């Protein structure tokens, strides 16, 4: 970095020790750095939720000793939570709320209480299958999935809708 030493050049006079940095080039460099970083910055972070659709590609899984969850989301404010073990229903619960946020909180609470119970500790939940109707939007489905993933249930699947149900979703227009 360039520096300029000020002071008199005349003979006999002491040279000043005041030094000034040449800040102009330094500011230029910083401005260029800021411009480059602002232009290349990623402002929206796109992530993903992993879903396994084994329908049609794999054979039936062996009967496991872990619990499995069936979620039937009938609307953005109601769902039915069914916990199974080896094909037998262990717990069935109907959840109703005023909004999808509240429903997600209620589901989270129900899952936390099951996971912390002796039965849940003995055989953790391994997978969850979600069935939704045409009136449930994709954003609301992701919220429900979020509640499951927060409770370490990461093996998620979505039951494919039939043609008529999907057509009803299209004709219903935008949900939000």
């Amino acid at each position: 970095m360039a520096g300029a030493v000020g002071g008199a050049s005349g003979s006999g006079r002491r040279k000043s020790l005041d030094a000034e940095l040449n800040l102009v080039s330094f500011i230029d460099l910083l401005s260029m750095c800021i411009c480059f970083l602002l232009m290349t910055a990623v402002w929206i972070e796109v992530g993903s939720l992993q879903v396994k659709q084994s329908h049609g590609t794999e054979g039936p899984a062996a009967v496991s000793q872990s619990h499995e969850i069936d979620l039937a989301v009938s609307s953005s404010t109601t769902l039915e939570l069914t916990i199974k073990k080896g094909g037998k229903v262990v717990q069935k619960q109907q959840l109703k709320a005023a909004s999808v946020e509240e429903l997600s909180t209620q589901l989270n609470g129900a899952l936390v209480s099951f996971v912390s119970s002796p039965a849940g500790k003995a055989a953790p939940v391994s997978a969850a299958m979600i069935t939704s109707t045409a009136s449930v939007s994709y954003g609301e489905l992701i919220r429900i999935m979020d509640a499951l993933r927060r409770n370490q249930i990461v093996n998620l699947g979505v039951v494919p809708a039939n043609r008529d149900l999907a057509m009803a979703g299209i004709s219903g227009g935008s949900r939000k």
Partner: protein
Amino acid sequence: MNLNAQHLGNRTFSRHLVSRQYQQKKRKRVIIMGLMLTSMVDMFSLLVIFLLQNFSTSPELAVVAKGVTLPASATSRELKDAPVLAISEAGIYLDQKFVGLTEELLDQPAPLMEKLQSLREVWEKSHPNQSFPGEISVQADQAISSAVVSRFMGMLPSQAFGSIQLAVVGGGRG
């Protein structure tokens, strides 16, 4: 005003300004404005440090399709490089290419199946002796019906795309 070395001599610029102000003080009041360069450089440095911390060297894998607003999720993971199937009310796009109208493809999914099959064949040709991972990224609009998305998700395994990544915006409250 030409402020070259001839005018300034060996003096620094700030000294020159002070002496000029002193000389002119008796005649009229002169206001000399100076930039506070130190604080400006401090601010610039902090900005550069902040932007460097947020700087991502990984390439932007997902180009969000037009007309698609991704839902937010608090439990999202890093998006892997995979073919992108974009689902919106208007149409279906596979790797940024228009495949067909959503309503038509729900009824007759053959064009989508053909495109998926050709994608798989291209991958298998370019990666001999490797098993097909079957990964696909699904970008769907948050307002679209979940039945539409699940219908398309149900079609994917028939072409060996069984590992589906649902694209979301990270950092949501969930």
